[in-house]
């Protein structure tokens, strides 16, 4: 590299006023322009916009730049955009470095001088670093058209069908002994009361009869090896039977589980016989017997929302479906037991879906009393004294009336929230997706990439990403399917190349790297007595690089040299301005 003359172009983005208002972009570009090897330093309103990118391309051609630095937002946002731009200009996309002067400067600091100073040193560092960048050539990998779908719930099933209907092989792995997941436990769905069984049956039937789908029930997926387009794993049955499968993409649809309210004393679940969870109540409705433990028809049924949800001590998040489920119950009960009074104790009525507000309006015109409580002041269920008209009372402070009231109840239904499966961590590790605080899987981007993950070829759909109702889950399943179908259609896709590589002359064969590699991508070559990296398995974490005592391992695009020079750049500018 070094011998070739360095011609670096630096571009500083205003990002409208997002950066410009906190960083003196003019001043910075002027000062940066003076740095060695910097041929041009410009600033522009929106570097990411079409004209912004054209500017870079144009300059590369005119001033035959061979290195580019853009100081703008986070590389996580636009690194790809500008790498593309370099490519269009016929420059290797890796001869590019981004300085993050928005997320980590203009948005987080309030003193313009300091912010400007910081921006300068970050850019200076990037300039130093970029001059040690080397051309890396994108490798393409072949995409195995088969797909692994983990989880046989409504999301998994629809994803499987979506992909299989496009003529691609699908392996559907379900941990329980039957398909259908939690929808299979439902009686009817909100807001229109369609029969859950009737909507599930044809789908399951199609899955089972589908020539392109192989179903594994009562099976678990062992750790997945490989990378986009070329994954492999073992599917292990209850009986310990192992099946090895190969596939190009993964859909994680492991769903969620219901919150267990036993831990909450105020509801007395487990102690009071007629306090049931929504899951248990659903079963009753399905069997057409809404009865107390003593087999009596309840005169008063109370529904309590947000059990385990919207609660700082348990789960802060909203479980999204409970409100409408409660309204569904209210309708079913009033229909089945015209004499029975229904009390719906809620916090906020979240009827946001299509047809849901209408359902709320219709329900409120029935024999249902809606009572509101504060999520920080939960109701308490108490046994009544003998001879009372009802077995229990729900004591609560009603918000809409400001009254301290008690609600008569012969049966109380706890609308239990949703939470991540206890084995979510395992799954996350098996397929390499990250989790957020509450153990739901994190999508690549909360807005524009709701189903992809940070690991290429792995998609998360349905409730394992966060509570969801049926249509939303199915939409997500479709989304993942389209991604996968698109990748398959490309046959060959490009993959990252920032892997580790061993310089055999320097390697002393100590094999430390082999111990530290989490993907067993490093192996020991007995003849040459050196380590070698399998670049296909390597995910480029660089741990080996920093462990290697002789510096024989270079982690591409994060070489010692590059990082050292970045440090120098930082401090040099610091010293200069200080």
């Amino acid at each position: 590299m070094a011998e070739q003359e360095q011609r670096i172009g630096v571009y500083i983005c205003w990002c409208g006023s997002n950066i410009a208002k906190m960083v003196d972009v003019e001043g910075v570009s002027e000062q940066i322009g003076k740095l060695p090897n910097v041929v041009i330093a410009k600033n522009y309103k929106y570097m990411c916009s079409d004209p912004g990118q054209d500017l870079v391309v144009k300059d590369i051609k005119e001033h035959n730049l061979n290195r580019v630095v853009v100081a703008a937002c986070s590389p996580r946002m636009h690194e790809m955009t500008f790498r593309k731009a370099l490519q269009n200009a016929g420059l290797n996309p890796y001869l590019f470095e981004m300085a993050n002067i928005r997320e980590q400067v203009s948005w987080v600091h309030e003193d313009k001088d300091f912010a400007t100073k910081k921006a300068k040193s970050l850019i200076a560092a990037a300039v130093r670093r970029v001059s040690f960048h080397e051309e890396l050539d994108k490798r393409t990998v072949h995409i195995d058209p088969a797909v692994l779908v983990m989880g046989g719930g409504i999301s998994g099933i629809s994803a499987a069908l979506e992909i299989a209907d496009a003529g691609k092989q699908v392996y559907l792995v379900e941990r329980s002994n039957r398909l259908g997941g939690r929808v299979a436990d439902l009686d009817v769905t909100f807001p229109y009361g369609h029969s859950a069984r009737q909507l599930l049956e044809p789908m399951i039937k199609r899955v089972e009869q589908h020539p392109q789908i192989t179903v594994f029930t009562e099976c678990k997926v062992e750790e997945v090896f490989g990378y986009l387009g070329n994954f492999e794993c073992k599917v292990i049955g209850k009986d310990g039977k192992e099946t090895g499968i190969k596939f190009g993409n993964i859909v994680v649809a492991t769903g969620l589980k219901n919150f267990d309210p036993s831990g909450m004393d105020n509801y007395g679940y487990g102690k009071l016989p007629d306090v049931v969870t929504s899951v248990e109540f659903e079963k009753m409705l399905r069997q057409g017997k809404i009865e107390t433990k003593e087999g009596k028809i309840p005169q008063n049924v109370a529904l309590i929302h947000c059990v385990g949800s919207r609660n700082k001590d348990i789960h802060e998040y909203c479980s999204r479906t409970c409100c409408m489920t409660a309204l569904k119950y209210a309708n079913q009960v009033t229909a089945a037991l015209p004499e029975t009074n229904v009390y719906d104790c809620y916090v906020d009525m979240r009827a946001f879906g299509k047809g849901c507000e209408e359902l709320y309006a219709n329900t409120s015109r029935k024999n249902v009393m809606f009572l509101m409580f504060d999520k920080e002041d939960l109701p308490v269920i108490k046994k009544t004294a003998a001879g009372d008209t009802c077995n229990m009372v729900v004591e609560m402070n009603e918000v809409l009336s400001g009254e301290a009231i008690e609600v008569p109840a012969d049966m109380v239904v706890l609308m239990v929230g949703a939470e991540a499966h206890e084995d979510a961590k395992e799954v996350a590790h098996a397929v390499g997706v990250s989790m957020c605080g509450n153990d739901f899987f994190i999508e690549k981007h909360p807005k524009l990439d709701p189903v992809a993950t940070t690991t290429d070829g792995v998609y998360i759909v349905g409730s394992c990403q966060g509570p969801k109702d049926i249509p939303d889950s199915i939409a997500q399943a479709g989304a993942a399917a389209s991604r996968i179908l698109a990748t398959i259609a490309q046959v060959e896709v490009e993959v990252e190349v920032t892997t580790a590589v061993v310089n055999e002359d320097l390697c002393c064969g100590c094999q430390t790297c082999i111990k530290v590699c989490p993907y067993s991508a490093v192996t020991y070559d007995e003849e040459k007595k050196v380590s070698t990296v399998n670049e296909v398995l390597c995910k480029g974490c660089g741990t080996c690089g920093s462990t290697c005592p002789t510096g024989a391992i270079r982690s591409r695009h994060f070489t010692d040299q590059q990082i050292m020079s970045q440090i120098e750049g930082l401090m040099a500018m610091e010293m200069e301005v200080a």
Partner: protein
Amino acid sequence: MSFEPKIVAFLCNWCSYTGADLAGTSRMKYAHNIRIIRVMCSGRVDPTFVLKALREGADGVLICGCHPGDCHYHEGNYRCLRRYHLMQKYIQQMGIESDRLRLEWVSASEGKQFAELVDEMTEQVRKLGPSEIKPVMEKLAV
């Protein structure tokens, strides 16, 4: 003019760097003294990087990685932890206050925690005053 510490931070790409970005998108304000260098994994942080930073005149070095168990590469952050303890011993041998080097876990959703961490560390280093390494090294060089 008052002493403004210079802190170099190594952040892992998956959790901590994203966390720092989150602090940004959420417009949380924190001390300007920090200079962030992105690495793919805290496991990539070679002790020599830390020493280099100190030698070049950093008054403090901060390393951030995913919380134990959350590492995108399974165990890189554990490797980093082990090395960290060695580094601590080493810099103390060199007569550098151990408070100048810190390892913290910051997840992708902990923008707030990151901002607070930076402020706290900045104050910590400010108390220690400027690091002596650079001048000393320069003297030795002569």
